[in-house]
């Protein structure tokens, strides 16, 4: 039997305990539904309010979070989430408006959405933006659907292949797979750029386009980016930008200016929407003029122009060749758009540029500090993140061990084993919201761990040892597949 640190909410249940009660009914009684339509049991917990609060507070204390410390998770942009966002997104006018209300009663919401669309267009250099997609991967699928619809409308039906660099996020090929299309993997060259020879060989009239993350997952800005885009366009393909790494580019360069046709934004990375322990995200998509008519519907538009005295009248518009609806209602308005709007409004053009300047400075500073202790396979000025190898000659220490040992020093580990093209990868993204002291302490910990790997490797193999939990048996979880718990009385009846 295992030790239980915190019982489940089901184990805390005891028949007859009450939490929040609802008022008595104020309408005349109606007979209940016929018995055959009713459920026989409702096997849910019975707990007092105080015990619910203590349970979730205890659980919260088992988490590491940005509010607690440094979270250098590559490609995830774990920056500080400003507290004011948590207030603005809960203003009653946002919180208590129904998505199907008449548009004349929600002009504030529509103005916010319209302005956010305009701001994202300006930041990225695109001609249009949809706010509907719920997350980055959802935005990607939206983008791929638009690319396919573009070729289809032109009768260009033999295009069935997507070019994807070997360093790409797994969502890129998965999005293409959902469409039933094929993937051609393009290798990286010795400087971490797209291999132009391989690209040239792959570019033909069966190519839908290319999905490129720039800066890529090595943290490198592709030095031949304009050439790459030109080659893809020349064979009739479209250029998809994975916006996961946009935190390096605000006020630095606009993907639309470089020639990208479509890109998703991750408002939960770049624009400070909190990650929420794995969601909700928010993944708007920007497009060039080429794909403007294919955006999902509806978009927010101006139905009647305003003037000096009156604001414009906003409403919904449907693009001519729209791919359709990606989700119910209008996207992640409250939790995503309001927070991102607040954040952008507080930054302005110079503030946004400073974000990217410092995100890049912090990454290069860390890279410089650890360079002589860890191999950096693509060693040049990086953008907002860099990749080191988590292995040492003559040692059996792996990236995983280094990651777990970092927990003992009070840090969240970097992303590990990604990108796949670097062995034992440690992908480090400090973000702009960390100060020099934190970066120094983190670098010191990494350097100390490199020494430990040589002299006391068992410290790494047994890490973490100072956290409340040690390493998990993942095989047991997958083999036994215990995915649910039950009320104690039901559990006893089962066994």
């Amino acid at each position, binding site marked *: 039997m295992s030790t239980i640190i915190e019982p489940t909410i089901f184990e805390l249940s005891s028949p007859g305990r009450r939490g929040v009660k609802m008022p008595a009914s104020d309408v005349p009684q109606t007979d209940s539904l016929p018995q055959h339509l009713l459920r026989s049991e409702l096997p849910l917990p019975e707990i007092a309010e105080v015990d619910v609060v203590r349970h979730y507070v205890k659980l919260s204390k088992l988490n590491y979070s940005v509010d607690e410390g440094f979270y250098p998770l590559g490609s995830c942009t774990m920056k500080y989430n400003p507290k004011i966002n948590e207030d603005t997104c809960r203003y009653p006018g946002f919180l208590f408006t129904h998505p199907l209300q*008449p548009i004349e009663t929600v002009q504030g919401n529509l103005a916010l959405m319209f302005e956010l669309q305009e701001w994202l267009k300006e930041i990225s250099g695109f001609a249009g933006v949809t706010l509907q997609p719920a997350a980055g991967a959802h935005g990607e699928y939206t983008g791929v659907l638009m690319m396919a619809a573009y070729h289809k409308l032109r009768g260009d039906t033999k295009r069935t292949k997507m070019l994807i660099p070997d360093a790409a996020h797994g969502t890129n090929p998965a999005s293409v797979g959902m469409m039933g299309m094929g993937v051609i993997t393009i290798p990286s060259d010795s400087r971490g750029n797209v291999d132009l020879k391989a690209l040239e060989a792959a570019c033909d009239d069966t190519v839908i386009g290319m999905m490129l993350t720039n800066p890529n997952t090595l943290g490198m800005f592709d030095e031949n980016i304009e050439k790459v885009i030109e080659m893809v366009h020349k064979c009739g393909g479209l250029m998809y930008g994975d916006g996961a790494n946009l935190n390096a580019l605000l006020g630095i360069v606009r993907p639309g200016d470089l020639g990208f046709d479509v890109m998703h934004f991750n408002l939960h990375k770049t624009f400070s929407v909190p990650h929420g322990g794995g969601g909700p995200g928010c993944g708007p998509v920007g497009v060039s003029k080429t794909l403007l008519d294919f955006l999902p519907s509806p978009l927010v538009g101006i139905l009647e122009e305003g003037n000096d005295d009156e604001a414009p009248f906003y409403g919904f518009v449907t693009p001519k060749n729209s791919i359709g609806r990606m989700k119910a209602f209008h996207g992640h308005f*409250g939790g995503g758009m309001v927070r991102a709007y607040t954040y952008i409004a507080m930054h*302005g053009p110079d503030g946004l540029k400073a974000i990217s300047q410092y995100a890049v400075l912090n990454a290069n500073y860390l890279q410089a500090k650890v360079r002589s202790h860890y191999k950096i396979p693509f060693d040049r000025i990086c953008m907002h993140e860099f990749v080191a190898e988590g292995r040492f000659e003559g040692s059996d220490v792996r990236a995983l061990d280094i990651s777990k040992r970092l927990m003992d020093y009070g840090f969240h580990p970097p992303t590990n084993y990604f990108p796949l093209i670097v062995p034992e990868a440690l992908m480090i993204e400090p973000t702009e919201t960390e100060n020099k002291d934190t970066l120094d302490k983190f670098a010191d910990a990494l350097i100390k761990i490199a020494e430990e790997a040589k002299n006391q490797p068992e410290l790494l193999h047994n890490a973490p040892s100072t956290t409340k939990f040690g390493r998990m048996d993942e095989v047991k979880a997958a083999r036994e597949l215990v995915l649910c718990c039950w009320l104690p009385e039901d559990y006893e009846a089962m066994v």
Partner: protein
Amino acid sequence: MTFIPTSPAETEAMLETVGVKSLDDLFDAVPKKHRFPKLNLPPALTEMEAAAHLSDMASSNENVRQDLVSFLGAGAYNHYVPSVVDHMLRRGEFYTAYTPYQPEISQGTLQAVFEFQSLMANLTGMDVSNASHYDGATATAEAVSLAYAQYRGKRKRIVMSPALHPQYRDVVDTYTQGMGIETVGDEETNLTLSPESLTSYIDENTMIVIVQYPDFLGRIFDYKKIIDEAHAKGALVCVVANPTALLMLKTPGDMGADIVVGEAQPFGIPIWYGGPYLGFFTTKKSYVHKMAGRLVGETMDVRGQRSYVLTLTAREQHIKRERATSNICTNQGLLALAASVYMSVLGKEGLKEVANLCYQKAHYAANELSKLKGFKLFSSEPFFHEFTLECPKPASEVNQYLLDHGILGGYDLGNDYPELKNHLLVAVTEMNSKEEIDALVEVLKEI
């Protein structure tokens, strides 16, 4: 406003360590002609100014707590959220954490998701639940992906009820446009027929049948017969269910459903102008390997402590890449937490009270409204907290008249079903007092 903590002196020191002279020198790899564009954005606001600006925007809306009385549902429901829910969501340990890829320091999120899975499985009467989807509509589309994967793309037909939420039908259409699939059964003329009439569309090429419970018009049907019929032809059945209704109604699991999905927004999540919400997805254990989305399983750590990890990750995009069932890589973590806290703090009895209040008030409203001259209920089928009301005039006119009296009347079904242009879909929850219902009836007397 800035959230960058670095001082000018520290900046200089760091630049020196890196070996460049200025911040701008870090960007030499960027093509010069496109470098440092001038962004045409409004100047930065301080926190105080931003708060005031956003507050103005929010107040220019008319909301359903302070400005309007609402009988609008149609997939988003105005319910009471106990105070505890938001207090828990506001804990930085939950909302500023990432996906729990490092289980040693993410047990809070992992156990909370495990409990969410358990609560949803028990609610729907199914074996397993995943960690959630973007919303009810995309969860429905993912049910199609499961069925598509189950039959390895060999079955190409979806049988869909015309009384499935119109936006959910749209999303399924968008998601499946690359799969070469046909969708049948959702013609408006089938709307007034019994759900069993859908069985005539189910054939050996059918991968999945999708019905809604209660359906979009509010009607409650027992789907056992259609489920048995579908199983006889080898097709799966997905029931799109309202979680509040499930607190009272026979579970889809009891009817034999293979997949139960839906929108869990009614469980502790504000209507928030449409999102973010919480798609739930439950199924039978035999389909768990084909299910998209994250999944948390119980295990043990090296110290012998019970603990939780993301499991069956080999199904997911970061491992399987183009062979994954779905590209999904987030869940609605924080909102799954909201639903769990909501269910926990109301508990079994409090939840029954919510369901009963919805049921009682909706039936009182339906009864009073159908006494009005020219108004009657569209269907005599049983309903839960939402019903279709036939009006003597187009629903759009009725709604405009009600809005002039500060009431959101309901959803104009003519938007999606031309034949039902005189019909309103009216939702009543525990938030609607008898006075509000009586006011609605009074105003409609005069139309």
